[in-house]
């Protein structure tokens, strides 16, 4: 019994931190519809800032508490600045571009922390007066955690008061239910957005600052917290602050008792299994509200810019010729870079079919890229198939997984769809990561090199080129086919589509399977180029990377994905070569590109092309 109660208290104390971070993210999402990847970065920044302040302030024991108050305020201020200076510029672009912008902010803050505080692990100061522990039922329990257990509900109460008893809070809730209506009633949305962003980052900052006596301060705190926060927000209901409280308590307690009862193979996956279950059974979360037709992430995806760019045949022939000749002119390393770009062009191109044409935002597309890679490696190593056969069959593995997961995903739309894809990708990641006997676990599978006849860099390049050209033209064919047009119709007006007798779900499922297939092909190309496969291929950073590539090129531009893949990969490689602060430089360039070309690079060319043609008559 004592064990049970102490474990419960421990779980609840962890839950309070999750609640603070998640409520902030949930509020920001509810009002601005931004999935803010930078939320974890504010949490990390506040923890570092607070530990430095606590050491520097000349207040004796009180400096710890002064730091806990001041650091979140500083971070909230920074959040406000970022909202005003960056996000506000592009509110008229598709909302996804704001996701790209928050991703850039993640990179920049990550390097800022590295620059100011170094990369070595640090510990924050202990809280004066609360650093001891008290016996509870014969077990020692940290006093600080008890204080957190009191503070958490108080903060929740305060949040409730703000949201329900102040005019500002009422506006926030109104905007969460119907943003356009609030705008129509004459409320200044700009300041409402800024205010919510500041409040949200303050909550994240507070959690970070309060964590400093408990955990190690590391440069990966941001990514560790953000994924768990997504889970909490989804379980509680996007946009609901109290849902976040409920979700946090559930996750905190589940993790605490999971330690006692769950076999270790499941510990990585358990919260994502819960997340997937909630999304399947009650997509809008425990306390959220079912999404109205407007205001979904899908809405923003509808606006296609400019006319379709249809370059004459000779342009294509020229590009193809250049790609054929290029490897014999370039040094070997750049041949491998090109191979990698081709793999990512397939990966991003398949995602574009989902996001651009289908209006289905996926946060977990890396699952199919990774399963393609693993499919190739396992067919070769475990099934002892020759390399070319493994290469050809691998996409089928990915497609099968995509059809299975997709069957659940396509029942949802908008951000719920995105979150379910994320949950499935994380589950797939956990399986690959934990199934040591079959997948090699975190060691991955090594020795996945191409057959001897294909091993020379230039030969393998031609194989990759063949795969990419076939794959991309197939994807473009699909986009231009009646099936592609139906997908687009289903994206823009799912109800009308249904009314004229189109089975929207089965169309979407097929698109999901096709996208999975070509992502898997990209994965197979990648696997043999690297000679090895690892769980990282299925990880969330990989999914985010593919999304960044699609956005960089332009979601509605056919050539967007390969161009985005090439630009991103080359930037990445060139920058990493010249500076240790690659994150800051890459993030800065991304910010610039997003603000300068809010419809992607190819999207920009398309729009201008269309205007020029129009003005020429």
């Amino acid at each position, binding site marked *: 019994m004592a*064990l049970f109660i102490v*474990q419960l208290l*421990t*779980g609840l*104390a*962890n839950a309070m931190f999750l609640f603070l971070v998640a409520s902030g993210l949930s509020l920001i999402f509810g009002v601005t519809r931004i999935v803010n990847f930078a939320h974890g970065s504010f949490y990390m920044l506040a923890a570092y800032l607070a530990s430095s302040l606590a050491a520097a302030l000349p207040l004796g024991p009180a400096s710890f508490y002064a730091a806990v108050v001041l650091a979140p305020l500083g971070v909230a201020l920074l959040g406000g600045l970022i909202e005003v200076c960056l996000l506000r*510029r592009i509110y008229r672009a598709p909302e996804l571009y704001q996701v790209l912008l928050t991703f850039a902010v993640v990179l920049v803050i990550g390097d800022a922390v*590295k620059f100011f505080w170094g*990369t*070595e*692990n640090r*510990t924050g100061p202990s809280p004066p007066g609360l*650093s001891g*522990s008290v016996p509870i039922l014969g*077990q*020692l329990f*940290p006093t*600080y*955690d008890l204080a957190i257990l009191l503070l958490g509900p108080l903060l929740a109460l305060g949040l409730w008061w703000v949201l329900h008893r102040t005019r500002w809070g009422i506006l926030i809730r109104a905007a969460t239910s119907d943003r356009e209506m609030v705008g129509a009633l004459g409320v200044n949305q700009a300041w409402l957005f800024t205010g919510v962003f500041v409040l949200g980052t303050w909550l994240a900052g507070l959690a970070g600052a309060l964590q400093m006596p*408990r*955990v*190690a301060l*590391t*440069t*990966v705190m941001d990514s*560790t917290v953000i994924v768990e926060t997504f889970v909490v927000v989804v379980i509680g209901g996007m946009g609901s602050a109290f849902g976040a409280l409920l979700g946090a308590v559930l996750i905190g307690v589940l993790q*605490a008792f999971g*330690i*006692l009862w769950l076999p*270790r193979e499941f*510990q*990585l996956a358990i919260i994502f299994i819960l997340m997937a279950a909630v999304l399947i059974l009650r997509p809008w979360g425990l306390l959220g509200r079912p999404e109205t037709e407007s205001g979904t992430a899908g809405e923003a995806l509808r*606006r296609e*810019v400019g006319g379709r760019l249809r370059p004459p045949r000779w342009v294509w022939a020229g590009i193809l010729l250049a790609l054929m000749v290029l490897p014999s002119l370039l*040094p*070997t*390393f750049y041949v*491998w870079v090109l191979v990698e770009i081709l793999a990512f062009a397939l990966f991003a191109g398949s995602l574009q079919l989902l996001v651009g044409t289908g209006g289905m935002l996926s946060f977990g597309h890396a699952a199919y890229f990774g399963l393609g890679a693993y499919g190739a490696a396992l067919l070769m190593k475990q099934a002892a198939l020759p390399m070319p056969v493994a290469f050809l069959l691998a996409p089928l593995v990915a497609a099968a997984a995509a059809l299975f997961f997709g069957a659940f995903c396509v029942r949802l739309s908008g951000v719920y769809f995105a979150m379910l894809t994320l949950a499935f990708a994380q589950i797939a990641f956990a399986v690959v990561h934990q199934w040591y006997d079959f997948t090699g*676990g*975190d*060691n*991955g599978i*090594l*020795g996945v090199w191409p057959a001897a006849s294909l091993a020379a860099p230039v030969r393998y390049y031609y194989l990759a080129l063949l795969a990419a050209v076939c794959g991309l033209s197939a994807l473009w064919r699909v986009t231009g086919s009646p099936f592609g047009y139906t997908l687009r119709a289903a994206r*823009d007006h799912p109800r009308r589509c249904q009314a004229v007798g189109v089975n929207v779900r089965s169309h979407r499922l097929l698109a999901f399977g096709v996208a999975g297939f070509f992502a898997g092909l990209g994965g197979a190309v*990648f696997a043999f180029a*690297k*000679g*090895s496969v*690892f769980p*990282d291929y299925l990880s969330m950073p990989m999914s985010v990377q593919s999304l960044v590539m699609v956005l960089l090129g332009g979601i509605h531009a056919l050539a967007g994905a390969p161009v985005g893949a090439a630009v991103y990969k*080359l930037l990445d*490689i060139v920058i*990493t070569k010249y500076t*240790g602060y690659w994150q800051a430089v890459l993030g800065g360039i991304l910010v610039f590109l997003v*603000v*300068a*070309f*809010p419809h992607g*690079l190819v999207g920009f060319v398309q729009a201008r092309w269309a205007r020029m043609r129009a003005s020429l008559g």
Partner: protein
Amino acid sequence: MRHPLPRPIRSGKLALASWPVFGGLVVAFLLVIPSGAGAQQPIRIGEVNSYTGIAAGFTLPYRQAVEMAVEEINAGGGLLGRRVEVLFRDDKGNPAEAITHAQELVFGEKVALLAGTFLSNVGLAVSDFARQNKVLFVAAEPLTEALTWSRGHRYAFRVRPNTHSQGRMLAERAAKLPYKRWAVIGPNYEYGRRAWETFWARLKELKPDVQLVGEHWPTLGKIEPGGYITALLSQQPQAVYVSLFGSDWIAFAREASKRGLFQKAFFVGILLGEPEYMEPLKLEAPEGMLVTGYPWYDIQAPAHKDFVAKFQKRADRTPVVGSLVGYLTFQSIFEAIRKAGSTDTEKMVAALEGLKVETPIGPISFRPFDHQSTMGAWVGTTKLDARRGGGIMVNWEYVPGEKVLPSEAEVRKMREAAQ
């Protein structure tokens, strides 16, 4: 009905989206890309390591020592009459990224060999690349046994003592302790589990009556220590073996002292006596733990004192074990190139096999049959030292690699089993 076309976007006051901006970017991009290899004069060594990501907390003092070794060799006229240049690349803690850099370094920069890596899976990936492309790879820090044994090959060498060696050293000492009820906590990750398996197998061999009362494998980098500590307390082990990594250990140690776990059980920790693990905890470091580590402050050999002084001057900080390994790795590489008289891969491999290197901690050699160096580790107990403001190791002894490494026949058996 067609959906309406939106107005072209003019982003605020700053109308950035324009042809000149776009064209300028394209030109800038084309200018940056074909920056090929320059003069081939210096001897170039490619170094891949995790300067960001999960292992970022460990690699900077390593790099500083490598830079120091390179500066020293160049100050003495370089190698074979040529300057030495090390090209550092960040693998971000990601094996695929490491392969990209290996490709760039080998095919683009034409480096003579690859060195470095910290994480086990990154080390294995680079090693496999080296095997495929017949390039020499001298691994510095990855601990997995597989690197030199089950997945060892002609082109891979490793400097640091692996999980097997360190686990064995700890088991020899732990077997002399009276504890029978054991528990383990480590990351759910290759390193954490391997580090436990060797230790436990050896301990059971030496002391057959030990029993395992609990095992805990939290997700790497995501430990919620409170819950694990309650669980450990309820299992009432007499001794706990810890293979937690980096930040997980820090969070666990802070919470365990508050919850009184250190008073209730004896602790054995692999690597936990290293400055990398002790320093961040300052005076919160637990006392009386049996650990492997690096008591640089107490090693009296003049050569080592000299190394510490030089490093402190160069890096403006005290050394960690990574610094020592980095220095030794590059000393060995230089020695091998000198002995080979060229940077030809096969000649360097031949030179490294059986190569004996004089280092600040005495001579080490590379075993010709498995390419593992005989660098050892220090085993001792932890103690707080108020004067230094943190934990130190006391009652330590240096266990050389020769004492704990398996014989040639055993290695051959492991390699055959992996085939």
